[in-house]
């Protein structure tokens, strides 16, 4: 159950819009651990810092490299992610750190749930909803969607495509960073510079499952993934022949491949 909540949080961590931000996610996942210290208040700080980083990454890396071809951007971002992790290690040391933020727990349907976790999940949902709404209702949101569908057409209509891209990158990474903050509510110990790796994978699985570009889809996919992972965990524990947490991760990878094979546009269409 706790795992389901975790993935509900993580879904926040991705996709301001489709294939574009997909690239930004690489670096983002490695970066987020840096902002993990105090809880909810930090979320705001994380958002701001993340946005700034996103913008920088955009103008520094993504825009100039887009001309040279996809490969270069991907590799550069990957390297950037690794670089950030290394710098983190330099600054903060490789050891695991963590904290508990205990504000009591609540009984729901016979299970004990920490309020902090519950709050985290609820906030994640709130963010997802607000993002989705703003994409649909506001002028800016609609510009984003226009650009995703037809960049040249959008330019002709007067939308500053470059700024839209920059802003999307900024928001995307900002959300990712916030996601990182929320994540810390769920893993009391285990923050270290290298924690990003598995989450990149998870993030992509969620993004692809939910359909790149669909925010609510991503949220739902996140929950779905959480459920699948929990189920997988139980199944393997019962079966007894395998190390359950590891197998659960393998399951996610297999899932990613399957989805990519059969339904690359994702399960939900929003």
């Amino acid at each position, binding site marked *: 159950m706790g795992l389901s909540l975790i993935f509900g949080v993580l879904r926040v961590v991705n996709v301001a819009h489709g294939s574009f931000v997909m690239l930004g996610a690489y670096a983002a996942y490695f970066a987020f651990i840096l902002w993990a210290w105090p809880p909810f208040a930090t979320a705001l700080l994380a958002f701001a810092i993340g946005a700034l980083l996103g913008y920088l990454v955009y103008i520094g890396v993504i825009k100039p*490299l887009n001309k040279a071809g996809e*490969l270069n951007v*991907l590799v550069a971002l*990957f390297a950037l992610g690794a670089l950030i*992790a290394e710098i983190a290690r330099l600054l903060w040391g490789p050891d695991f750190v963590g904290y508990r933020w205990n504000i009591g727990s609540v009984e729901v349907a016979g299970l004990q749930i920490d309020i902090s976790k519950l709050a985290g999940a609820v906030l994640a949902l709130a963010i997802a909803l607000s993002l989705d709404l703003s994409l649909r209702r506001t002028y800016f949101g609609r510009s984003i969607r226009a650009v995703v569908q037809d960049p040249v057409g959008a330019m002709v209509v007067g939308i500053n495509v470059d700024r839209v891209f920059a802003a999307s990158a900024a928001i995307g990474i900002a959300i990712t960073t916030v996601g990182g903050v929320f994540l810390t509510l769920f893993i009391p110990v285990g923050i270290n510079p290298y924690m990003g790796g598995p989450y990149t*994978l998870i993030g*992509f699985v969620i993004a692809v499952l939910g359909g790149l570009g669909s925010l609510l889809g991503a949220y739902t996919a996140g929950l779905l993934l959480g459920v699948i992972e929990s189920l997988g965990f139980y199944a*393997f524990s019962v079966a007894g022949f395998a190390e359950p947490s590891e197998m659960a*991760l393998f399951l996610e990878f297999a899932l990613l491949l399957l989805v990519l094979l059969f339904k690359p546009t994702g399960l939900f269409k929003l």
Partner: protein
Amino acid sequence: MRPYIPLGAYLALMALAFALPEYSKQIASIAFYMALGQAVNIFVGLTRYVNFGYAAFLGIGAYGLGAAILYMPQLGIATIPIGLALGMGLAALLALTVGAIALRLRGAYFAIATIGLNEGIKHLIIGANIWGGGAGLMLGSSMFKVYGRDLALFLANVGSAALILLTGLISVLAMYFIQAGRAGYALAAIRQDEDAAKVMGINPTRYKLLAFVTSAVLSGLLGAAFFSLGNMQVFPENVFFIDYILDGLAVMFLGGAGTVTGPIVGGLIYYGARYLVGIYLPGLQSLITSLIVFLVMLFLPNGIVGTLNRRFEGLRTWLP
């Protein structure tokens, strides 16, 4: 295209290893990076698709040999060729399965698929407790038993180095022959304009798969040589270490992606850089690696050989 310069350079390196056996370990390390870069080059350089899960092939190769040594000691010395074959076979199998699915996808989607490859395989091995699971394989004692102490040590030191050098040679040759033949034209077409290539009679998936599997098999060989033979142990955390893809990318991009000479040059420089860092700024190797890749991508995306080839037109024949 004349392969004389890159081939000659590499053979010279090999000769050096034999002539100066005290330095053979270092030279083997240089060769390791060259081979790594070349194997990555065969796929990433020729197709411009990024395989982030690359280290999985190193690992699988290592496991192949390791498993053979550990579980089939009755074969005696034959465990080596059989184990190597096993490692390469597994790598090929993995490449075929993943490739058949992932290579139908366009660039970015393919990259996503491969991101999970490394972690996925690692977790599978640890989780399902295959081949020693999380604890890995300790080959030392088995190797002593099977080969006898002296032979085992000989294999670990000299044999491993020799195998690494050999793998490097094979990689250079493979890269050259692919580049210079039909496949080279096909891959060039595919990476510059995949749709146009299709209309002209090229089946992109087939050629991508060719490059992918070749790259995988060579990596498997390298992994077996380095980990199982050289270090006498195979730990999942080590062999599936994500840094190796960065190393490979660094070597390849530094030298020049898509060229035969590139990884040779890149390997030399990269090794030198790491060596220096090891002396003056120890512990920062990984940082330097990712920094190198990052900077190269931004400022010198064609690598040294690539940029030279662009400036001076006829150079491509001699530095293919």
